[in-house]
């Protein structure tokens, strides 16, 4: 064994308490303590196993070699040009009110429209905001929305997060153009821990697009994200996640939305890339008149594996939530949807819906759909439905009888099927970008 190998192994960072210390270097005391407690929770919590209902179809012990991953602790490489793939994706974005760029877990730039900044809108690196003593960060980071106590991965993220986004839109301020996070992971075999904390104050409005990209990797590369979204009374929030990692990418997100009285908090999860994608989304309806539209779109091919675990918690009466997740699966791809509507005691007048539809394009692709209801109030309107269907032979013949080649016909049917989701959240640029990304995938079908 050479000397060089020995040295490299000595400096090689692993997921462990020393990495927690490294990630927290320069943090205020409260945050170092919070990280340390989170690490304790992580160590005390067993890895989710296939024996648990929520992880039955995603075998993390086999798919995610946590011990072998090198955690990114947020050291930005100064002066480095942005990767080409990231620049291309950013160039496609149309008008933005602000943007944060994050490379390998470190924020490298923050831009915000000056007029919005003057109105009190804050868009910042989460790490900078924590260190600057922004009070909401201490109050809300990993406390109410995605605390360490939520599980193994929320705990790991709370201990090891290196950077992310803090966004606050003050009372009554309406941000009409989209604010964006553009993320890139470049190093194979790394683990990146990112947090997004968004607070929309009373009657404010914002839309936020969180896009993650990477090249293809030959080894498993983890991007773990905790998303904490607060919409205060009467606010309107849209959050979109575009997951377009390369092969080898393992995307694991815990998202929680807290919608107060008369606010709307809508989400769209788009999963197109990576080898494994697991999203845990919990929407909490906390006040009467709160509304959450929850949209999801996934298109898997090769051996891609997407697992969505959603819950709609109706805590308050007279709130509304409507979930629609649609996916197309080709190759040997696997799609899992598990959703539950929980109507808590006293949440009378709840309106809650849940629909998951899958289109299977090959013999080897599999879709599993498990919708569920848990109702503890009597005056409610709830429904859930799931379908798994094949490409309709009669529809293909119909299209081909007009001259379309088989692959053109298939593309049209798939785009039409998935397009329903996009048409429900027509955010500037998102529809075009997702459509292009799906079409690029369909070219290889």
């Amino acid at each position, binding site marked *: 064994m050479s000397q060089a190998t020995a040295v490299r192994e000595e400096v090689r960072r692993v997921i462990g308490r020393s990495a927690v210390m490294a990630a927290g270097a320069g943090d205020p005391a409260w945050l170092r303590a919070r990280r340390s407690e989170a690490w304790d929770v992580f160590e005390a919590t067993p890895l989710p196993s296939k024996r648990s209902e929520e992880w039955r179809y995603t075998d993390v012990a086999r798919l995610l070699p946590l011990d072998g991953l090198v955690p990114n602790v947020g050291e930005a490489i100064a002066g480095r040009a942005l990767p080409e793939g990231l620049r291309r994706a950013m160039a496609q974005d149309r008008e933005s009110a602000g943007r944060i760029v994050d490379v390998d877990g470190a924020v490298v730039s923050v831009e915000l429209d000056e007029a919005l900044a003057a109105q009190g809108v804050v868009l910042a690196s989460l790490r900078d905001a924590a260190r600057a003593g922004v009070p909401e960060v201490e109050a809300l980071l990993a406390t109410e929305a995605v605390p360490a106590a939520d599980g193994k991965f929320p705990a790991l993220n709370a201990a090891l997060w290196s950077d992310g986004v803090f966004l606050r839109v003050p009372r009554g301020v309406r941000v009409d153009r989209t604010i964006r996070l553009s993320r890139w992971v470049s190093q194979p075999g790394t683990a990146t821990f990112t947090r997004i904390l968004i607070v929309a104050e009373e009657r404010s409005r914002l839309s936020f697009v969180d896009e993650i990209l990477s090249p293809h990797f030959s080894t498993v590369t983890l991007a773990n994200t905790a998303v904490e979204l607060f919409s205060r009374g009467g606010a309107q929030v849209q959050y979109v996640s575009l997951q377009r990692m390369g092969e080898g990418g393992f995307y694991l997100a815990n998202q929680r939305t807290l919608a107060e009285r008369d606010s709307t908090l809508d989400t769209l999860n788009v999963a197109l890339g990576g080898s494994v994608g697991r999203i845990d989304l919990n929407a909490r309806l906390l006040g009467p008149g709160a509304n959450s539209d929850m949209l999801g779109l996934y298109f898997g091919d090769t051996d891609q594996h997407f697992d969505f675990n959603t819950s709609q918690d109706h805590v308050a009466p007279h709130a509304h939530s409507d979930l629609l997740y649609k996916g197309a699966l080709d190759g040997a791809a696997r799609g899992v949807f598990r959703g539950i509507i929980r109507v808590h005691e006293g949440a009378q007048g709840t309106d809650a819906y849940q629909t998951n539809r899958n289109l299977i394009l090959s013999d080897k692709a599999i879709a599993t759909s498990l919708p569920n209801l848990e109702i503890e109030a009597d005056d409610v309107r709830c429904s859930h439905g799931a379908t798994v269907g094949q490409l309709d032979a009669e529809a293909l013949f119909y299209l081909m009888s007009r*001259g379309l080649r088989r692959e053109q016909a298939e593309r049209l049917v798939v785009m039409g099927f998935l397009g329903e989701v996009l048409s429900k959240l027509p955010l500037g640029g998102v529809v075009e970008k997702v459509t292009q990304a799906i079409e690029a995938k369909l070219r290889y079908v």
Partner: protein
Amino acid sequence: MDDSPILAVTGLEAGVADGDLEILKGVDLAIRPGEIHAIMGPNGSGKSTLAKVIAGHPEYEATGGGVAFGGEDLLEMEPDERAQAGVFMAFQYPVEIPGVSIANFLRTALQSRLEDGEELDLFDFQELLMERMELLDMDLAFAQRPVNDGFSGGEKKRNEILQMAVLKPALAVMDETDSGLDIDALQVVARGVNALREENPEMSVLLITHYQRVLSHIVPDTVHVVVDGRIVESGGPEVALELEAQGYEEYRKAHAA
């Protein structure tokens, strides 16, 4: 006018793919450019099977005889190749394609007719679509609706006619397009077919129907009566009128043996 048939069906035997049941038991038919032929017959006689075999429906299979279109062996061609060659079938039950607008569908259909690497000019397409919809007296908003999704029976058939008008086939096969239509919808369909024929007198039509009613709106050159998988009589429009008076029973009896 060229006297060689655009469509030549010779001794065609056909049935459902993977099935033993023979539905067409030797059909001969020649349609020349510009001719309108009507195929009439009772339910289960095989008249729709003929349409589906011509269009290339995957569930039907020719087991004997042949179909030539413009001199080419149609049975060797995929459905999309048949369409590109100039065959169009108006479906009896047009299929719903949710999320795909009629305009997008037609644009893709026209794009598919171009060479690889050639792009359909969107402005030209819009122009063509508007012109075609005007010809058929259709509201432009119709083309923005998803293909047949939630359409009434009449709207579905109008959509078939619009597609035919945009794609301008050499042979239009109308598979019981008239069934289930009220008289207004039937007239819309007939006006569309007649307008296209006026524009292109070379367009041939194979009109498959159960009822005589449509033939007073689209007047055929020849009427064929199909019973039990065979053409049992061919003649002028008067054949349809005789049928209307006598019903199919006479033919059934005559050909039962």
